[in-house]
């Protein structure tokens, strides 16, 4: 989706901004403070390396969303700023460091403002820089921030891209970023504190050996890859996100909310891309539609490879999410079994 938007002639594609600023969803409050902050603090938010994504890079666990080239870039794995992980390389693959450097001055200069004003100023600056007239921000797992985004940008239009929960959950269970987010959430609950913000380990004994090996002071690639994350757990997570996300989106008029199924994009790319492009920017060029549609690739669902035990548990976990979507007329059935 971000790649399609990136080649749009008028739209600025902001990819994975909020996911990396919030350090994979673990610092949401810091990304959306409820009080005005200074421009310097805003720049700090954009530029200060975040612990979880840093730890992953330092252990050679690079998410596919991370476009920063560690071989040629000036930053080492331990100090890549969050906006350089994905967002800036996405905009300028050849000169992301220079783009980052060019942002510091303008972003640091400005009045104390509500966070929404800082983000708008940031987006406006980049739109001018790249000659665009509108912006789209897309972050994986963004549905969990839907309520906050809606309050910060009440005038914004929203695209809700939704996929079969079973495939989503399976993908999440293997995705480096989601695996890290879920295991970090479990560590927080077990320790009673965030181990990346606090050295208190009073409740360390309550961690299983598996989770203890993944504390920041012990973290290693082998332990991370061995971490058992059942697809059903991700399925429960998906159902929860769908339910709370749909609540947050409730009431948005259809002129400002486009809900589109991933499977429809794959099965009817031209039609789907046209819908998306029209929704974002009114007019769409046929040239862009063709190029964007050509980018669509199908991914064969892997859930048939699951054991009966895991498949049944996954179905059960996703049921509440499916029920919530069905209430809006969105359903998944046999016709959604994709083939190459």
């Amino acid at each position: 989706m971000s790649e399609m938007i990136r080649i749009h002639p008028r739209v600025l594609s902001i990819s994975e901004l909020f996911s990396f600023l919030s350090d994979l969803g673990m610092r949401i409050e810091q990304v959306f403070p409820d009080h005005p902050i200074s421009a310097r603090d805003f720049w700090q938010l954009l530029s200060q390396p975040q612990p979880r994504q840093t730890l992953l890079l330092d252990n050679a666990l690079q998410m596919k969303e991370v476009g920063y080239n560690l071989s040629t870039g000036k930053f080492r794995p331990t100090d890549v700023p969050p906006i350089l992980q994905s967002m800036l390389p996405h905009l300028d693959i050849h000169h992301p460091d220079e783009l980052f450097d060019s942002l510091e001055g303008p972003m640091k200069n400005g009045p104390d403002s509500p966070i929404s004003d800082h983000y708008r100023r940031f987006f406006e600056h980049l739109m001018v820089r790249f000659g665009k007239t509108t912006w789209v921000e897309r972050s994986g797992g963004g549905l969990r921030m839907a309520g906050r985004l809606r309050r910060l940008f009440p005038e914004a239009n929203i695209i809700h891209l939704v996929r079969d929960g079973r495939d989503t959950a399976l993908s999440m269970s293997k995705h480096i970023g989601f695996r890290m987010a879920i295991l970090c959430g479990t560590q927080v609950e077990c320790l009673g504190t965030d181990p990346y913000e606090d050295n208190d380990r009073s409740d360390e004994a309550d961690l299983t050996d598996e989770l203890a090996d993944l504390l920041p002071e012990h973290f290693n690639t082998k332990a991370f890859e061995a971490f058992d994350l059942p697809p059903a757990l991700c399925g429960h997570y998906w159902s929860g996100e769908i339910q709370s996300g749909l609540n947050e989106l409730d009431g948005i008029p259809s002129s400002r909310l486009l809900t589109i199924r991933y499977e429809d994009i794959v099965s009817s790319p031209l039609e789907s891309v046209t819908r998306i492009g029209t929704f974002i920017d009114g007019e769409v060029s046929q040239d862009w539609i063709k190029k964007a549609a050509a980018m669509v690739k199908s991914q064969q669902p892997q859930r048939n490879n699951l054991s009966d035990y895991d498949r049944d548990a996954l179905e059960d976990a996703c049921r509440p999410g499916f029920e919530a979507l069905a209430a809006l007329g969105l359903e998944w059935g046999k016709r959604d079994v994709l083939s190459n």
Partner: protein
Amino acid sequence: MNIKDQRTHVITGATGFVGSCIVLELLRNTHANIVGLVRATPDLSPTSRLRNTLSGLVSDYNLPQSLYRDITERVTALPGDLELELCGIEDFEALKGAEFWHSAASLQYQDRHKEQIERTNIGGTANALALAKAIDCRVFNGISTAYVAGRQRGHMKAVISNPAFVNNHYERSKIAAEALVTSSGLPYRIMRPGVVVGHSKTYSTTSTDGIYGLIRNLAKYRGTLDRTQSGLSNRRPITMVADSAGSIDLVPVDHVARDAVGLSIADAPQDHYHLTNPKAPKLCDVIAECCYCVGLTTPVFVGSDRELDPLDRKLHRRLEFYNSYMINPKSFDRTTVNNVLGESASPGFALDTHRLRSIYHSYLDRYEQSRTSLPVAR
């Protein structure tokens, strides 16, 4: 009060949950002087630390105010360290002939803590025994656990335990520690408490282990469920592997201390003693009330982890230590205690719903307050 009992008692773990209650029971029922071996800290002397702990418990347990003076006049402490030879005590002349109580222990059980568990529970016991020998102790009272019975089921006699049945490093270390005691050549008593809970009158506890560890981990599991999906803990019944028809030996700390000190005063012979609860509650009630108090649904009990779904398997692994309580139901024979104490043995403590909830809340309320605000999920 036993007037003739004016011996000195040396005790490790005197600031701990069981050890401190034993000290208070000794103060109430004897004229003895108590010397605690207490780890030194930069801020307080060992004596101050021990006296402060005990004074706080007089209030928490609603004990006679006269104990404050007893604590000041009859309790002292030496800077001790179980990991050192002779527990780090160099001048022990004043301890000669004392009765020795060894209650300090590590209650860790995870694989990653194996070395520390052995160092404390086995190495610490060896050092305590060495000191006990050096002071020509009158008798060595080793505080162990009834759950050295491990995976055995049925009615457990108070006899030497078999390491073939252990569930974890903790149980293995306690059996090894008992073996050191029984082979030391010293007169000994092996005392095996059940799962020790708060005071029978006030439910107050300083423990964070045993049933409190179980309830804390259930509370954390609820938090994990709700972080995964808001309200999931309410909607989704949890399933646990447990023999729900069995009992779990919850025993109030003052009942343990009462029996322990009673055995000492009665000059109980060298033997193994179960300091347990003849009215132990049913496991299904104990676990159901745990779940109720932390906001989880009433659990479904199954016989095998093959019947668990993936989430409940995660919980099962997290609660691995507590399998000793939940699987392979057992009761503990108190014949050796009753033979010595007769009617003065603890009569047992029936734990109905009200008492169970009071016991849990005396811990949970304090625990919830200590949790700092966690990062929001969304």
